[in-house]
């Protein structure tokens, strides 16, 4: 289970939800980070996909992710799109999860690259997002 942090404001740019991705967002709202894993080659994908991008097998299963990883790269965005102006500057980063997945997300602190990080859930009033923070 990921730590859940309550945020008072709605998401600046809410993600859309499809019949397929609904599972991801519902789980996330409850503190579970999940993605799809190929039933043939067993590799994970992120974002979750209905097919395996690695071997094009059409059967995938939902699988939990630890949320533990390492900060690969990071920046702070000062010049922001309209919807994000109120929160600028804000940090984003690229995280390599232990399961061998690379993803991008919000970054809650200014951390040196290669630091171990852990994903957390940001619970906005209109739905969840995810972010990375330092471990411990």
């Amino acid at each position, binding site marked *: 289970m990921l730590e859940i942090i309550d945020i008072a404001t709605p*998401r*600046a*740019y*809410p*993600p*859309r*939800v499809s019949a397929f*991705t609904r599972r991801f967002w519902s789980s996330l709202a409850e503190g579970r980070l999940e993605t799809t894993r190929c039933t043939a080659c067993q590799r994970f*994908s*992120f*974002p979750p996909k209905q097919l395996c*991008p690695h071997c094009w097998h059409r059967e995938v299963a939902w699988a939990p992710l630890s949320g533990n990883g390492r900060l*690969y*790269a*990071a*920046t*702070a*965005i*000062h*010049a*922001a*799109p*309209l*919807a*994000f*102006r109120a*929160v*600028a*500057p*804000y940090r*984003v*980063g*690229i995280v*390599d999860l232990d399961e*061998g*997945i*690379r*993803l*991008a*997300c*919000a970054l809650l602190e200014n951390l*040196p*690259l*290669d630091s171990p990080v852990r994903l957390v859930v940001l619970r906005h009033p209109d739905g969840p*997002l995810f972010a990375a923070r330092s471990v411990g």
Partner: protein
Amino acid sequence: MTRTVCIIGAAALPVGKWQKPADAPEQVLEHELLAGLVLDAVADAGVERGDIGAMAFSQCRPYTLQKYFATFMAHYLRLPCTGTVAEVLGNGMTAGLAFEQAANDILLGRARVALALGVNFESATSAAEHMMSSMRATGDVDFQVPFGITPIAWYAMDAARYIHEHASSRAELASVAVKNRAHAALNPIAQFRKPITLEDVLAQPMIVEPLGLFEVPPRGDGAVVLVLAEEDVARGLGRPYVRVRSRGFFHEGAHQISEVPNDMIRLISAETAGRTAYEAAGVGPADMDFAELYAPCTIVEVLASEALGLLPRGQGARAAAAGETSLGGRIPICTSGGLQSRGHPAYVTPFYSLFECAEQLRGRAGARQVPNARLGVTSAELGNYNAALVHVLEAVR
């Protein structure tokens, strides 16, 4: 029959703020400007209007009200075509792909002369507003865009990683901006021409850490027309021209970041496309007299230079700081002033690169001329250099 594509004529609008706000009483119309440039470029080439058989357009920004711009222009110029008339789109590679489409019509024998052209007007829309659209290109709209990642934020993360891995520094990267401004000072169509110092660059407000205002591209408008022809036609004109020696393309199958961890700052697509192009031409990076690269930010010029073998891996920023990539240096890069100073009207930017190559290789670059420039390399990219299109170009005089 094997055909060879050549650039025989070119015209470019000085990069700058041309577009008027939507409520201005008088508008600057994209098609009026572009039509004039077509005539300029065709006169520069010395061909007849009736020789032209195809027109490949970089797409206009959505701010351009005139839709179906390509066929509209075919009408505006009353130019019947037996080759293709179309608009193409592919992020920063857009104009490179349009150039390819025009070249393909020549290679396939569907036109003997073809225009590659386009206009990018966007400056009347504020950056914050523009980014509401451009951020939807920065990755998955539902899994990456909600974090507010802007297009250049990926490059900023490249910069952070580069400094971290190669013990480089913001100052080393920033030296690229100083060099490019010095080049732009010699380029009459550059958007910013007043020389700057390293201190000036470092004193600018942060845009995306560790990149400040002078290390990222300004916003601006531009338009370019290139005239391409089969080499038989080029030869017959009795003027200097540019031979497209080879091209290489590679898409790595990822958009912005790969979901499978890789070495993000090794631009595998530029490396592969570059190798393909060099091999097809039977040359190597050391044979290049100059390079005009697609590099929105300082860091991108460094990474692309390394991937194309122009500078050693991890040493690109240092080499730039040491003057190796300046005019007069070992391998002058972005003699036009690059995207930071010549400007970056994104959908036509690779046209401006090809324009600069054509100026250099025809010996018309004036104060920024690379002496005896015979071979040059140029690149265009998709995403975070997830794909690269590379051309090796040669002077024929």
